[in-house]
């Protein structure tokens, strides 16, 4: 790669050709403020706060979108630049409601932080807040257009990263508005509730529907509150308590939940192992009995929603296995309830998820009531749990690790890697090997499906057979694989893959839309390492070896994919319109 020698405020620096001024400055420890730029997205120079000077030129250029040029010296900070940035900031704030105290982003807002950094104390411009109604049409997200600063991150995320196209700007100039497809409500748009818009929004214009008080009411009631936590939560929530991304805090979360007053602490990882037993068995049946291939994973509710809207022809390919969260909910209100002598209505079932789509999933159709009532009553995101822990005065970082409750709390390493792209595939391969060959897999680490490539394609040898697999993460990366499958089907050829794993969010659930703010590739890598570390530390690495899994089949479910397992743990899919209005 060719390099370029430039200077930042006189400091020489060598960077790769094509590097933007913003990144070059970071290399020498100079931070240029941004509001629209995000490392997940192509820069598009909307906000104007990152302007810098090129020595010898009278023009101000945008550091986010301008490539460095050999020999140039860039001035990133001087009184004039600071003054221009301050004006930009004041103008943005003059159109923004000053409601920080009751804002979802209070204390974690990028605009608030910049206002503090720039010592903004007065706004010399007349306030121009547009009085527009909130959109609370989905169960996952709230859009408050009054707070929108038109940075465009959500639009770029929805279109570039996710290829969903629920969001777009309408109008122009001062009348520009970010809305769901042509001024409809978000629930009427193609939105898949992945919440990546909320994770990327720099302010409080799009945020998860906060249900922390519903949780507190459950605790105060006489219900038996049973909580499960998803794999990705344990390597991220620590960030809200000044711990490094990727720090495994499983035992502290169990402990914090008990201090919050929860009656039973379970782990979605148990149900991830259960999913592998069901989905793995389904795969083996499809492969050995000539079923419809490829089989496609169905654990991600945003992907399921996307498939039902954009790829309904793939419904027969979808694994009928429910997501781990829904399986955990179903066995909590049946198997656990019976063991405990409780009625399904005595239990309040709560799930802590890295995901906003999970709030939608619990009532997506009546299959989510396998126990006769809602299998999961409430979903809180990682962010919401973090706030609950803070408000309860719990010193999270110094909690002593505790253990989950039996009989649906133990997990194998396979269950924990469900939270990262490639993890479901890897966990499935570990168990499929046993199911197909009768022998344990020699090397449990399936490196072919690990890593950050947008699409990972590989072959896994299982006995005499070769399993062709594909893994995609980030909704926009699904298209190539689905097109391949369609093309082969239309041409009457062998399917190109046996098994496909899809996760809607880039990196998998570790970077879900409900995770702590500030996710970027560096944070993704740390959280991912955390989950693989959790897997490696586990004594049991394969789902079928999890003693509580063995017990639930022996005591309650019978065989994987048995009639009872089907009733409780499997579901159906339906075509849904992309635009409901």
């Amino acid at each position, binding site marked *: 790669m060719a390099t370029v020698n430039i200077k930042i405020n006189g400091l020489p620096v060598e960077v790769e050709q094509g590097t933007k001024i913003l990144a070059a400055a970071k290399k020498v420890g100079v931070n240029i403020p941004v509001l629209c730029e995000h490392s997940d997205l192509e820069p598009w120079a909307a906000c104007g706060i990152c302007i810098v000077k090129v020595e010898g030129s009278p023009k101000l250029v945008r550091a986010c979108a301008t490539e460095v040029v050999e020999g140039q010296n860039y001035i990133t900070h001087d009184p004039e630049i600071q003054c221009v940035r301050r004006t930009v900031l004041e103008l943005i704030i003059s159109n923004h409601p000053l409601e920080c105290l009751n804002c979802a982003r209070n204390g974690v807002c990028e605009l608030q932080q910049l206002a503090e950094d720039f010592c903004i104390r007065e706004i010399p411009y007349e306030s121009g807040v547009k009085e527009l109604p909130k959109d609370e049409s989905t169960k996952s997200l709230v859009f408050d257009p009054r707070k929108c600063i038109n940075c465009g991150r959500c639009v770029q995320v929805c*279109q570039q990263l996710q290829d969903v*196209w*629920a*969001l*777009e*700007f*309408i*109008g*122009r100039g001062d009348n520009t508005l970010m809305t*769901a*497809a*042509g*001024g*409809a409500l978000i629930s009427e*748009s*193609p939105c898949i509730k992945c919440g990546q818009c909320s994770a990327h929004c720099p302010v409080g214009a799009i945020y998860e529907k906060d249900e922390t008080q519903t949780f507190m009411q459950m605790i105060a009631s006489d219900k038996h509150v049973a909580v499960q936590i998803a794999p990705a939560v344990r390597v991220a929530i620590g960030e809200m308590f000044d711990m490094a991304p990727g720090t495994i805090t499983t035992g502290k979360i169990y402990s914090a939940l008990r201090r919050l007053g929860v009656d039973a602490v379970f782990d979605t990882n148990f149900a991830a192992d259960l999913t592998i037993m069901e989905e793995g068995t389904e795969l083996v049946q499809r492969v050995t009995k000539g079923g419809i291939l490829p089989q496609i994973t169905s654990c991600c509710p945003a992907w399921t929603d996307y498939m039902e809207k954009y790829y309904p022809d793939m419904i027969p390919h979808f694994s009928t296995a429910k997501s781990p969260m829904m399986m955990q909910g179903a066995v909590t209100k049946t198997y656990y309830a019976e063991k405990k002598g409780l009625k399904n209505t005595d239990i309040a079932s709560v799930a802590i998820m890295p995901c906003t789509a999970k709030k939608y999933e619990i009532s997506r159709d009546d299959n989510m009531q396998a126990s006769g009532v809602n299998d999961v009553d409430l979903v809180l995101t990682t962010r919401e749990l973090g706030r609950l822990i803070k408000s309860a005065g719990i010193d999270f970082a110094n909690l002593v690790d505790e253990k989950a409750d039996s009989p649906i709390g133990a997990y194998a390493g396979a269950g924990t890697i469900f939270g990262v792209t490639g993890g479901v595939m890897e966990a499935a391969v570990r168990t499929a090997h046993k199911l197909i060959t009768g022998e344990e897999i020699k090397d449990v680490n399936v490196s072919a499906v690990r890593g950050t490539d947008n699409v990972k394609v590989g072959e896994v040898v299982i006995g005499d057979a070769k399993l062709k697999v594909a893994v995609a993460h980030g909704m926009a990366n699904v298209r190539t694989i689905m097109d391949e499958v369609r093309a082969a089907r239309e041409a009457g050829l062998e399917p190109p893959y046996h098994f496909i794993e899809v996760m809607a969010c880039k990196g998998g659930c570790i970077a879900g839309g409900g995770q702590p703010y500030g996710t970027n590739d560096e944070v993704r890598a740390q959280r991912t390492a955390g989950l693989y570390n959790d897997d490696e530390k586990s004594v049991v690495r394969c789902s079928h070896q999890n003693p509580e899994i063995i017990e639930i089949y022996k005591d309650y479910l019978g065989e994987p994919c048995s009639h009872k397992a089907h009733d409780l743990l499997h579901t159906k899919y339906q075509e849904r319109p*992309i*635009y409901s*209005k």
Partner: protein
Amino acid sequence: MPTEEKIELPKDLLEFIAKWKDKQGNLIMILHKTQEHYGYIPRAAAIELAKLLDVPLAKVYGVITFYHFFKLKKPGKNIISVCMGTACYIKGAGDLMAECETLLGCGVNCTTDDEEFSLQGVRCVGCCGLAPLITVGGEVYGKLTPDALPAIIAKYRSK
């Protein structure tokens, strides 16, 4: 946005779409043709176009709302255009506009409740000698004072 029934696009529009489908810049051309037919872009038509062109509806609306030319609401039977060009403006186009708003009971770029009239301001019509002027449909009414407007509007009302 009002909910509308499913729409069947007219044959000539479908043919036009078929011709333009794979060409660059097709969306704007097709939106022009659609508005030519309906007088505006009905939501059901926008959804249909999105499907036919394999373009997200969000993008269709991004384009429609970016250009003032495209309309989202059905225009009135008669379109009153008040020329706001320099000559007309100096000679009192502002007063004409204000009087039209009062007489019609609707603001600029709006349509009366009975869908009889739409009111809009336009750039120079090209006959400054007649300033100030308005046009209704294809007719030009020049050298106007506000008190001439009631008679003109009455001429078009439920004709």
